[in-house]
């Protein structure tokens, strides 16, 4: 019988009650007495020099409290980048300033120039229209190759180049890889684009700031995945507010997908302005603003080469990638195409020689940063596409070619500097083959053909690195922050528990799954346990939620803190039972003296901790509250095998996903239902990237896909019912729960499976098409078929 309690139980998500009944508390639901409203006047040109700003008429308009321009931010810090990349020549990356409001130049459509603060949003918008900004338009650079060409217009004049860095990984392998490719029996080459995406969380970004003159304290409510990181970056680097005078709260957040990790100009602005005008300031993004101000994702242009020996063993991989940074370095932008991408290029395979070259490029577009998967989907896509192409060129079965090259022994140190602790790629592939009824594919293809359609099967394997760590290593790699997490377990006198966690839940279901872990450890009911998250004044510290890190990193901190609670509680129980604490056993919420029927209940012990009348005060302190910080010793490495079956209409080029199967290895699973939901959502986003989503600029830097009229999000009818499985579990060896991470897997594993299936469908109709860039739209498929 499936468990209904503790680790492994598919408990319904308790937070959904408030989300589904409209009682969630999102940032936009927060309104503070005396609040003003802010509207940003944004650049409508991609690149230009600001020659004058005249706010006089606007300032005289009704309701206007104050108008801010870049001048107000002279002497104030810029938005920092959290990761310093060292290039392949040992030089630091180019790190241009990123002002809160434009200073001198605008660098992308949407770059904020002025901010109007007024009594109402209407008045702020009206006044913004009366501001006269003169901009001398400059030629824009949009295409990355053009940006690197001699004489290209410079996004940042003071950098002298649009090249942010030229990174080689592992640089020492470069010559050996070149050599291996030169001498290889067969080399498959593929050039591809990983399409630029807009994250589009359902809730747009919002920031509300208030300032308390009495104690000089600022509070920022913001739609963030990591409020402590915002406090650190904004307090220390931008506004110079010490942590104890700055509270950052991220209440219910309606989806993040990465784009709410970063520290943004708007939240720094409202915090700054609230202090200046001594009134609260609120900003709510419109959907249109989100398209031109939320950090975008992906946008890589890659050439990959896969070299094989005469027996089809992989001998080398070489990649050459251009990665778009956009106009400024967003918080984690520089690390995505490097440490989160290069380290994954071994995939699931034994390839002895790997070299990754990435050139990061500034362009006159919105900054690009992490989006669900962040670097890992880009790595997986190119590797799995080139493997599929190689299989086709060599006339071998794509599954067999993968199986032949799987890593089978763990731990496995890759040539790209990471060590996989566990995994069983054969087991997930076996499971996948069982799930997809491969034997029945030929019949299904016939059925499609009878309707005038083509049918294709696409396979994909992925490896992910989650819970990026340890801090001392990432520090050497250029991270400007630690990557641990923290939890405080506060047991109250009556035995109920609040767990303050540094992870932030914005769709992941932590409020349900985290208590399951503590309940399992203590043998008490989940209803006695609540999670507190998202408020820097309530939580010790935290690095937040992204990179599928929450349970593996923060969950581990919570386990450590709970272990401390158990140790102390056993001492108290030992005292109450007049036995040695080493003889005390905790089971089903009772402390028993081993081998006797003497016991006390959980509540007796917690009460004694807070009413210490009969208590060993000389040995232990009263109270029952423990904190732990946890810094993992390694990443976790989830992996899996995915299959997609598509049907393709050769007359129109339209592709529909008919079947989709995912066999994942996430290690131990705390709440299977939540894990499946995460995989479902990830696959939907991956299918969205593969078939629909595309962020497009024209050559002048105007955003063509600036609304849902032109940016296609996946809808329910675009995705099939999924078959998902996570029974092939190889628990992580280095965290206490043996958990890996499941949040991004679906978005990493699905795009190559879809595109591989499309190519397979075309091949079955006699169309020799090597590759179609994503999104594989009807128009692109039809064009490819025309040759």
């Amino acid at each position, binding site marked *: 019988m499936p468990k209904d309690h503790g680790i492994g139980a598919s408990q319904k998500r308790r937070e959904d009650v408030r989300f589904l009944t409209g009682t969630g508390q999102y940032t936009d639901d927060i309104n503070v007495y005396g609040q003003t409203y802010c509207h940003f006047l944004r650049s409508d040109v991609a690149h230009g020099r600001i020659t004058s700003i005249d706010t006089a008429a606007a300032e005289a308009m009704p309701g206007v409290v104050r108008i801010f321009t870049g001048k107000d931010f002279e002497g104030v810090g810029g938005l920092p980048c959290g990761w310093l990349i060292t290039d392949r020549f040992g030089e630091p990356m180019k790190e241009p300033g990123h002002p809160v409001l434009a200073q001198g130049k605008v660098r992308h459509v949407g770059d904020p120039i002025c901010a109007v603060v007024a009594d109402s949003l*209407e008045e702020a*918008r*009206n006044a913004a*229209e009366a501001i006269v900004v003169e901009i001398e338009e400059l030629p824009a650079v949009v295409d990355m190759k053009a940006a690197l060409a001699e004489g290209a217009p410079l996004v940042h004049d003071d950098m002298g180049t649009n090249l942010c860095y030229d990174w080689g990984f592992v640089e020492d392998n470069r010559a050996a890889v070149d050599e291996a490719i030169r001498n290889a029996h067969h080399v498959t080459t593929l050039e591809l684009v990983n399409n630029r995406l807009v994250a589009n969380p359902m809730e747009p970004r919002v920031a509300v700031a208030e300032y308390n003159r009495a104690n000089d304290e600022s509070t920022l409510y913001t739609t963030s995945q990591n409020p402590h990181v915002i406090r650190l970056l904004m307090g220390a680097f931008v506004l110079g507010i010490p942590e104890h005078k700055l509270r950052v709260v991220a209440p219910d957040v309606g989806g993040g997908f990465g784009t709410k990790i970063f520290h943004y100009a708007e939240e720094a602005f409202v915090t700054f302005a609230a202090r200046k005008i001594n009134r609260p300031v609120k900003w709510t993004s419109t959907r*249109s603003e989100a398209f031109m101000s939320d950090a975008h994702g992906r946008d890589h242009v890659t050439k990959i080469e896969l070299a094989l020996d005469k027996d089809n063993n992989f001998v080398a991989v070489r990649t050459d990638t251009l990665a778009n940074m956009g106009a400024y370095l967003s918080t984690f932008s520089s690390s995505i195409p490097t440490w989160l991408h290069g380290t994954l290029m071994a995939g699931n395979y034994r390839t002895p020689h790997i070299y990754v070259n990435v050139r990061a490029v500034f362009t006159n577009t919105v900054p690009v940063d992490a989006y669900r998967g962040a670097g890992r989907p880009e790595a997986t896509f190119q590797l799995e596409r080139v493997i599929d192409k190689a299989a086709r060129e060599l006339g071998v079965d794509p599954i067999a070619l993968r199986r032949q090259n799987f890593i089978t022994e763990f731990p496995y140190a890759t040539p790209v500097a990471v060590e996989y602790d566990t995994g069983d790629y054969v087991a997930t592939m076996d499971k996948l083959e069982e799930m997809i009824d491969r034997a029945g594919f030929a019949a299904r293809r016939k059925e499609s053909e009878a309707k005038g359609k083509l049918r294709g099967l696409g396979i994909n394997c992925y490896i992910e690195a989650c819970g990026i760590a340890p801090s001392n290593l990432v520090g050497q790699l250029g991270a400007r922050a630690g990557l641990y997490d923290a939890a405080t377990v506060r047991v109250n006198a009556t035995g109920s528990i609040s767990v303050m966690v540094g992870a932030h839940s914005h769709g992941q279901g932590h409020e349900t799954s985290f208590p399951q872990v503590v309940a399992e450890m203590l043998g008490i009911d989940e209803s006695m346990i609540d999670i507190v998250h998202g408020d820097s004044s309530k939580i010790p510290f935290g690095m937040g939620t992204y990179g599928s890190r929450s349970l593996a990193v923060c969950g581990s901190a919570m386990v450590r803190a709970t272990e401390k609670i158990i140790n102390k509680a056993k001492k108290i129980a030992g005292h109450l039972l007049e036995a040695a604490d080493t003889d005390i056993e905790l089971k089903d919420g009772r402390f028993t003296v081993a081998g006797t029927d003497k016991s006390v209940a959980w509540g007796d012990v917690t009460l004694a901790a807070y009413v210490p009348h009969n208590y060993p005060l000389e040995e232990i302190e009263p109270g029952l509250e423990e904190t732990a910080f946890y810094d993992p010793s390694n990443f976790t490495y989830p992996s899996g095998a995915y299959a997609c079956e598509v049907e393709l209409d050769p*007359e*129109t080029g*339209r592709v529909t996903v008919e079947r989709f199967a995912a066999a994942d290895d996430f290690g131990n699973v705390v709440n299977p239902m939540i894990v499946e939901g995460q995989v479902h959502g990830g696959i939907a986003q991956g299918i969205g990237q593969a*078939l*629909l989503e*595309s962020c*497009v600029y024209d050559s002048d830097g105007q955003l*063509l*896909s600036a609304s*849902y*009229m*032109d*940016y*296609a*999000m996946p809808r329910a009818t675009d995705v099939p019912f999924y078959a998902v499985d996570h029974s092939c579990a190889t628990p992580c060896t280095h965290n206490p729960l043996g958990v890996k991470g499941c949040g991004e897997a679906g978005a990493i594993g699905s795009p190559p499976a879809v595109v591989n299936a499309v190519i397979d469908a075309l091949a079955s109709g006699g169309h020799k098409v090597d590759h179609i860039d994503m*999104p594989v*739209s*009807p*128009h692109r498929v*039809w*064009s490819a078929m025309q040759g």
Partner: protein
Amino acid sequence: MYSFEIVRPTSLADAVAALGQDEAQALAGGQTLIPSLKQRLAQPSVLVSLTAIAEMQGVSAEGGVLTLGGGTTHGTVAREAAAHYPALAALASNIGDPAVRNRGTVGGSLANNDPAACYPAAALASGATIVTNSREIAMEDYFQGMFTTALEEGEIITAVRFPIPEKAAYIKFEQPASRFALVGVFVAKFADGVRVAVTGASEEGVFRWTEAEEALSGNFSATALDGLTVSADGLMSDIHGSSAYRAHLIGVLTKRAVAAAA
């Protein structure tokens, strides 16, 4: 949006009078107008809601003609026209989502004449008549290029009369993001000939594919279209499809519409 007054007259005469004011504009379902107001792309001083005018509502069929009140919603057309003109009802049932269909109206759609909208194809293929508060406008005179029609300032579409064909079908190939027509083809077979109207494709808005009409009038079957192609000249090209792709789709969808016509 900018602030505006709103009135909701209950008679056509009051609506016409209200629309006589400076900077007044008709508001039907608001599915096109409200988004443009939100973007501050228009600044009417008075919006005259047409939703409370009973004489502009309803679906009726008589003497081979289906009449839709100008204020009839897509949702109502989908339900109530199905028995009389199934292809038209099916078209209405595929516009937007339930919220759009419950607000958006046939009059609003035809007044707006979006080059990717569905109703213009149905009206043109059916040879419909636009009835306004002051006159009747024949199809041949009504559409005048994208977002442009023969309507005068303040003129209200009170009804649209669709001659009911023997057989008809509308095939919409959706633009992936908006789900408007990337190309849509409406084929209508009448006793005296076939009409084929194409939406979504031309820079001039909805148009008739006369070569196809001639071929189909002689032989109403998909094979009659073999070898017929549409020139890509003057067709739209955007991030969702080139003009050549649109030209190709017109051929494919017309055949499918003929095959589907019932």
